[in-house]
């Protein structure tokens, strides 16, 4: 079965239009109001209102990095580029800002609703990928811990393959990742070794 698009609830959602006063802002505002969003237009600086916004439409023609209170590509909401000039430098800049989709200027009487849906979808995909990547990175960083845990388990008279199987079983029993199970084993064995040596030094 094909995956169905999740339709976000847009009534009462907040949009910020980062654009100087212009017919584009009016056309965009009319469509947003018809859909049921609240919006404000700001230029050149984004106010505090922006951080709570659900969508940001930003001018790709005149925009610059310092307008945004976050690093390029780190916007905490979906970003929609308003593109007038299709010069590659401006497209590049809009992409660096993390544009989730685009709307061409002049904005006519349609296009905003689909831009909202596509931007929301792309933003959520981007965010869930980022979480997944950081999780995978963290697990990669723990490779050495896994090797140490297997080695420690193997010192108890098992082969490496048996030790790894045991590690996996422990991870399953504890309902944690292999990396977390490895951390626990390494910590526990270090503790055992420590405890055997010098109790006093640990207390100080």
């Amino acid at each position, binding site marked *: 079965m094909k995956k169905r698009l999740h339709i976000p609830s847009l009534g009462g959602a907040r949009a910020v239009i980062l654009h100087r006063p212009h017919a584009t802002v009016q056309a965009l505002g*009319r469509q947003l109001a*018809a859909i049921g969003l609240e919006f404000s237009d700001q230029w050149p600086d984004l106010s505090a209102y922006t951080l709570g916004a659900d969508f940001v439409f930003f001018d790709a023609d005149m925009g610059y990095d310092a307008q945004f209170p976050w690093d390029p590509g780190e916007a905490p909401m979906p970003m929609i580029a308003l593109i007038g000039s299709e010069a590659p430098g401006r497209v590049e800049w809009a992409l660096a800002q993390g544009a989730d989709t685009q709307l061409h200027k002049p904005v006519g009487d349609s296009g905003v609703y689909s831009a909202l849906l596509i931007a929301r979808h792309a933003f959520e995909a981007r965010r869930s990928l980022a979480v997944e990547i950081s999780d995978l990175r963290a697990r990669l960083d723990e490779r050495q811990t896994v090797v140490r845990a297997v080695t420690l388990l193997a010192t108890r008279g098992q082969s490496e393959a048996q030790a790894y199987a045991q590690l996996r079983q422990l991870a399953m029993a504890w309902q944690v990742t292999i990396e977390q199970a490895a951390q626990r084993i390494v910590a526990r064995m270090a503790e055992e070794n420590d405890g055997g040596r010098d109790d006093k030094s640990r207390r100080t």
Partner: protein
Amino acid sequence: MRRRIEIGILYSRQGSYALMSEACYTGAMNAIAQVNDDPALDIELVPVERDPKCSIDLYQPLCAEILRDTSARHVVGCMTSWSRKEVIPGLERAGGTLWYATPYEGFEASDHVVYTHACPNQHLLPLLHWAFDRYGRSAFLTGSNYIWGWEMNRVARDVITAAKGEVLGERYLPIGDTAIDHMIDEIRASRPNFIVNSLIGSSSYAFLRAYAELGRQDSYFRADTCPVLSCNLTECELEELGEAAEGLISAGPYFRGQVGWPDHPKQDFGSSLEASAFFAVYTLAGLLSRSPQAETAGLADLLASSEAAKAGIDAETHHTALPVLIAQVEGGKFDVLEKWPALAADPYLSRRSRVPYARWPNLTVVK
């Protein structure tokens, strides 16, 4: 001395869905005649008629012809959403306005269109919730193979799924196609609680006749246990359908004999399509009368007037606040079963307050 103002009339008077567009045509022409007789108005409307014959490729050129060759800036017309979407770019270029008097699937709010019939929060949503309580929550969805059928069924699926119901099947036919046997077989096999019919014209007639026949063979498939629900079926198609229409349930802003909308004295309309086209022309006349500049004014300025607001046209969405009626065909006419007062349109289904039925799915208390 009345000012003469040309007005475009773009309705198909022959072809697969001509019965529906003929109803709109009648409403628009009756309104023009009454406007021209109304001593309270200082204008005379002159119709400029074009007939696209239910052929999708004729709408855009004929609409462009009206805007190019005559002084008309307002066109009343179009039946299918497909044809409406075809003419919008031309309206945009010429600064024209389409008055669209047909129920449609929503998700549009063009600068150049005024919508005077219902969208899903005014037809499909109340109809489904009403049906859930009476028949159950498992549905079979049918539709003509274009945006109306697709989007109506997508919305229906969302609402049904959110209400923990089930969609047992979803089938489409090209406009004008009458090969409905397969659809009927699937309905017979799946035994839903109700059917949502978003077929149009001759496909719809073929389907309803075959379904009536199915009901004669198996009493489960009768209106008491498994009715057909529709958001675009009106009186204008009852004669064509005859016996096959009995028991059909439809939602709309008007059914014959009802009063309240359109707000016009001594007016009996044949159907909501006729009423909606009449309303469109009469409202437009009110906006143009007594103000010579209005003829060349942009639509945004016209709709910003208190008169437009009084008529129920929302300057934000260009849609009309309409009563919601649910009616069932009995003895060849619609018998109104439920009625809610005028409700503002929510073309993008984003404002939950704009649903007359209390139990809008997202507000259901989770047990």
